[in-house]
């Protein structure tokens, strides 16, 4: 994976009760990745607001969701195909393959 100055963004809210998903999408640039963790995973599992926000930018940014958080919330089967499900070990790998991580909380 290309590590040449790319950023991994983690987002832990759904986009319904907090504007952080919108703020993250405003700052994320082409080649960055967004990893949805904790309540962030609701954004790709039926949340219209989150899904709409993400669709506006999804051609430029790779979208991941943390499997453990989806499973905990009963949502593992509700995730659209363009979202890559990863576990904690792969989360660690993503932080290594991107030059920095910005946590949105």
């Amino acid at each position: 994976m290309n590590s040449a100055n790319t950023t991994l963004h983690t987002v832990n809210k759904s986009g319904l009760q907090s504007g952080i998903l919108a703020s993250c999408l405003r700052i994320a640039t082409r080649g960055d990745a967004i990893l949805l963790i904790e309540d962030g995973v609701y954004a790709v599992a039926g949340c219209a607001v989150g899904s709409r926000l993400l669709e506006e930018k999804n051609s430029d940014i790779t979208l991941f969701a943390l499997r453990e958080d989806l499973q905990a919330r009963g949502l593992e089967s509700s995730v659209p195909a363009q979202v890559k499900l990863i576990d904690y070990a792969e989360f660690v790998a993503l932080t290594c393959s991107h030059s920095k991580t910005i946590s949105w909380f």
Partner: protein
Amino acid sequence: MSNSERKTLTFISRSSPHSSGKAKACLDMVLSAAVFDQTVNYIFMDDGVFQLLDKQTPATIHARNVSAAFPALALYGVEMVYVDEEALLDRGLHSDSLLADVEIKVCSAQQIQALIRQSETVFNL
């Protein structure tokens, strides 16, 4: 210090000044990084721009005045702070209504992205 290399640390302050400790926590990190003689970008986004309002008197709610420290940032080598233009617009604020004794540069998303690109580490709270 085991590493003398100068790095760029960016601090995005996105929280209003008094309802949580995040504004103060971010300021404290900024000052520490500046004391370590690192390059510091201090960016205000979202409700963080409310920290820059003039005439705050948080003593009425027994809170610390975080903004009181901003004029001293220049003494620490943080010559200016960056403010997201969209955050101001969304809140009906104009740079004229912000603290006068702080050098404020109003930025587009692209300018903030460029600051982040130059940074080794970004704190965001």
